């Protein structure tokens, strides 16, 4: 665990401060303003009902983690730092998990800032009926759903990043899974729903009516985590020194 934290610490340092500096900070502030202030104030009712923030806390980590996971592996190859890192005593799995942990923690932390900013914005603009607080389902989605979502894109991104020779190539290749997850998620579920027989739709609605929003969120998160664990295991198997050096 110490090794994972050592790698993660350095990665976070590069993501947040070390490298990108003001440019990096601007990116985070932009995200917080866009998703934490602009959207909530544009559609305050949808945000107050809890549906919109729930969707956003699953979606935002995809945008935040995607580019960094592309950079973290392909970037090390491009900047020729990977071989020196692999020539240390660090086990393969610690390097891999440390990088994933850093990217996901960053995406998760910025998502929490966005959730808090959106709640503050909604209260500042319309706080007449008392202090507004998101329901537990939104908090569950924010606290664990966003991490599961970041893990999902990181797991997928690892394979792309490891196969890409340059950061630019990795970023371009990352667009496809991002589109699939974001648009495929919304359009795909709608299309799947319409393809179901009416009887099945009715029985699903009946089943869902007995499930609370919190239980629903926890169910989705559990499913996501299962996929994440599968992807991480695959990633650990793929991330082998000998394979990386031999190309």
């Amino acid at each position, binding site marked *: 665990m*110490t*090794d994972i934290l*050592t790698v993660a*610490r*350095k990665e976070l*340092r*590069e993501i947040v401060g*070390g*490298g*990108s500096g003001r440019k990096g900070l601007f990116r985070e502030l932009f995200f917080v303003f866009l998703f934490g202030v602009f959207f909530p104030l544009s559609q305050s009712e949808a945000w107050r009902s809890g549906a919109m923030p729930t969707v956003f806390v699953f979606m935002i980590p995809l945008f935040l983690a995607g580019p960094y996971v592309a950079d973290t592996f392909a970037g090390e190859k491009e*900047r*020729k*730092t990977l*071989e*020196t*890192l*692999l*020539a*240390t*005593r*660090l*086990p393969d799995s610690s390097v891999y998990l440390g990088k994933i942990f850093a990217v996901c923690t960053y995406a998760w932390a910025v998502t929490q800032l966005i959730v808090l900013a959106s709640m503050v914005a909604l209260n500042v603009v319309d706080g007449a009926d008392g202090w507004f607080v998101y329901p537990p389902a939104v908090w569950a989605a924010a606290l664990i759903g966003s991490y599961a979502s970041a893990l999902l894109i990181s797991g997928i991104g690892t394979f792309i990043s490891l196969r890409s020779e340059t950061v630019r190539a990795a970023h371009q290749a990352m667009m496809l899974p991002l589109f699939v997850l974001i648009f495929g998620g919304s359009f795909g579920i709608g299309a799947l729903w319409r393809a179901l027989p009416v009887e099945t739709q009715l029985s699903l609605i009946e089943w869902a009516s007995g499930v609370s929003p919190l239980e629903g969120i926890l169910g989705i998160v559990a499913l996501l985590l299962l996929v994440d664990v599968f992807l991480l295991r695959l990633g650990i198997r793929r991330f082998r*020194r*000998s394979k990386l*050096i*031999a190309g």
Partner: protein
Amino acid sequence: MSASAPDIAIRTNGLSRAFGSVRAVEDLTIDVPAGSIYGFLGPNGAGKTTTIRLLLGLLEPSAGEARVLGHDVRTQSQAIREQAGVLLESDGLYTRLTAMQNLDYFGRISRLSAADRRQRIQDLLTAMGLWDRRDGRVADFSTGMRQKLALARAFLHRPKLLFLDEPTSGLDTPSAVALRRQLVALARDEGVTVFLTTHNLLEAEKVCDRVAVIRRGLLLAEGSPKEFHGGRSRCVSILGRGFTDALVVRIRDLAAVEGAALESGPHGVEGVGRVLVDLASGGDPAPVVRLLVEAGADVTSVESARESLEDIFLKLVEEGEEEGMIA
């Protein structure tokens, strides 16, 4: 292959690595004594970097075996990397981090305690002349400064074995000289083994206890720099007057002589000529001088024109080239 004796830091036996049909390293058998500086020489693409990767367990051998510090490269590579410091082809520094942050990261990886890490970083950065730039981003460093920082990183955890790929490239002359002294001191005083690849043959001659020449993955020659010289012909330069082509033909017929050539062109004084004579191993120049004097030539000086390691290296590589072409 039996377990390496403690006095052997690296032992390879038939070590080979192929990439498809390309044999990067072939049947490499070497012993690197512990506490020695071992020069690994070869032209670009000779297999030097692949050999280092194999010895660090970063690549799996296609055939053969190797033990480094008593550990098998196939099954105990982590133990090898734990005790090895490396400077590879690329300096491997994080340009977005500062010099301090780079070393701190690798110190943590090596599990140095916080106090030891701080002290060690300060000592090394000071020794490398980089302490004042400790908080500067590596992206703003010159090539020489980056090389020094990468060397500091390689020394950081007091490794028993150093793999250094062209360590003096990018360094100015005083820094290169200081580094060579430091390497010799590390080997002599602390028993650190240094596996060094270099194109600077003068450097290899100066610091290496043993030298290996590799080309297209094949080991062409191996031994101490002295053995390299001793096992080959000795060149003698004879300066004087009255040297003729006919005399040179007679010199070539002498038993101890492998070759002789009359060098034309001015030698400072009018009428002064020079004969270059290749003597067989252990050969004596006296019969050559006697022949010249008896033939009426005037010999003013006899100097040993010892071949440099560079000459020997070039000959070896050319010989290897010819053999390869014949094969």
